């Protein structure tokens, strides 16, 4: 009772003490960061500046989580591996399934298979992700009883990070949420791969490769694929950030113990330090992702290195 009262008072004081300042200050730094990331790629001083801000925030400004009474940053970082694992699994599903399907649809746009792949991708865009999650639970957990509907399952330590993809039980827990989260990006990758393939097949270098007598497999697998990959790498990189953001929804449905679920729980109990901490960390991730994408982009497409910077 006393604990609840002190919690309420503490929260009240916090709220009276102009929470807008707390929410807006770090946000304006994020904005600065996002702008720099978008406009300039990244430059070092700002990044360092940001890390100084983060360290400062972790040391003093953020304080402890109201609900858990431990430093907010630690609480979030503890859950980050779960979210990253889920997001990575989702992205891998999207890319590994999406590129072949998109290539196929692009090579044979008129065929029944090509058409149904495209219809499926349109459906993937339209289906509300959270509802698909529920339906997955309904079919695979309730009706068929094949897969667990909630939680992460046992984790094993890999270099000190708890991961669940090393055990069969972990996989069984991972597959439904990852498939759910992958859905939108799967549709996106299929579209990109299809458009890229159709464009590439008309280019001179493909005609030249054919004239040279290369096999169709080599033409598609090497020459076409390489050119199709450029836009996909960019989009996948940029989308990785939104996958992490959308993991909020998937984690809530499947009770996946990641940062997203923590965020929703924190919003529900107005645990401000955790909310602010989550934002800081996600924005840092975004900046890092943009940086990596820029690097990957210039590595894949030499034209970017020479001319103006690609945006």
């Amino acid at each position, binding site marked *: 009772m006393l604990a609840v009262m002190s919690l309420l008072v503490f929260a009240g004081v916090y709220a009276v003490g102009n*929470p*807008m300042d707390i*929410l807006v200050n770090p946000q304006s730094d994020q*904005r600065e960061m*996002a*702008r720099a*990331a*978008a*406009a300039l790629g990244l430059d070092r001083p700002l990044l360092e500046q940001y890390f100084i801000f983060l360290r400062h925030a972790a040391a003093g400004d953020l304080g402890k989580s109201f609900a858990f009474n431990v430093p907010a940053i630690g609480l979030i970082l503890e859950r980050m591996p779960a979210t990253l694992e889920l997001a990575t699994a989702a992205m891998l599903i999207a890319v590994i399934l999406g590129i072949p399907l998109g290539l196929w649809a692009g090579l044979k746009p008129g065929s029944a298979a090509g058409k149904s792949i495209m219809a499926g991708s*349109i*459906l993937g*865009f*339209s*289906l*509300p*992700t*959270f*509802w698909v999650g*529920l*339906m997955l*639970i*309904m079919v695979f*957990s*309730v009706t068929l009883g094949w897969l667990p*509907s909630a939680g992460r399952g046992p984790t094993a330590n890999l270099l000190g990070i708890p991961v669940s993809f090393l055990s069969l039980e972990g996989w069984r827990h991972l597959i439904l949420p990852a498939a759910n989260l992958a859905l939108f990006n799967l549709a996106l990758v299929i579209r990109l791969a299809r458009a890229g393939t159709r464009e590439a097949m008309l280019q001179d270098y493909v005609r030249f490769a054919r004239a040279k007598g290369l096999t169709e497999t080599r033409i598609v697998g090497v020459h076409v694929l390489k050119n199709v990959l450029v836009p996909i790498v960019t989009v996948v990189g940029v989308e990785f*950030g*939104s996958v992490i*953001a*959308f993991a*909020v*929804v998937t984690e*809530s*449905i499947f009770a996946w113990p990641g940062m997203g679920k923590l*965020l*929703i729980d924190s*919003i*529900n109990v107005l645990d401000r330090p955790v*909310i602010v901490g989550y*934002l800081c960390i*996600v924005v840092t991730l*975004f900046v890092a992702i943009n940086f990596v994408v820029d690097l990957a982009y210039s590595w894949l497409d030499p034209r970017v290195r020479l001319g103006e910077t690609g945006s």
Partner: protein
Amino acid sequence: MTARKPLARAAADFAAGRIALAGFVLLALLLLAALFAPWISPQNPYDLAQLDLLDSRLAPGARSAAGGIYWLGTDDQGRDMLSAILYGLRTSVAVGLVSTLCGLAIGVSLGLAAAWFGGWLDALVMRLADLQLSFPSILIALVLLAVLGQGIDKIILALVAVQWAYYARTARATALVERRKDYIEAATSLALSHARILLRHLLPNCLPPLIVLATVQVAAAITLEATLSFLGLGLPITEPSLGLLISNGFNYLLSGHYWISFFPGIALLAAVVSINLVADRLRDVLNPQLRQ
């Protein structure tokens, strides 16, 4: 070019696509159902006097204690799902439309002004839009709602905040192309006022891509609102949208009462798919380059 009126021509072009026409019919039906929900639904799902707890969680097609049939089953409170879905659709569509129109008005005004006046205004608006678009919409909406709290006005505000940048960018890009054309020069040399040129000459010619974008965005707004409501951050329980109905059904999913979540989801899907089909066709119809 035929001499037919542009609107009639656009309508005829539109109707030529059969899938799009089906989408349009479906959309029209859903809109009518949403509009007339209080008159066509079997019960008022939020009038407690009409609910019977004995009828709770009945399967689709079951008979009620009073003799009627619950075509889509009932929820935990004995509420007819069909009626709840019709009312929910009403809320969802209203939120989607209002937020899109507000976002459109704000975004287009800023975009046109940025393109026309240029300079610092342009830089400011576009930087803001860049900033906005570098974050996923769900994240921005979540943060806004975490700060603002619940309520239908707040969710509309959040949806406007995530949408305006798309319109601003598109309006600016189109206006920058249009303003170099002769008719704008003609209007300028007639010494018409800025407001008149912007609204009467520039705006109508920038509309086609904006209409397509806004149509797609209505679907996106409805989905986003449903997602936020599902997470418990959107609409309050007194104004349930489809997302809240689905979220309510989630509690009973594991015990096999699938219909409480399933049918509202189907309604949501139907609305989103039909809007997207219509938007897809509009894009083709309104793009003169494809009409050769």
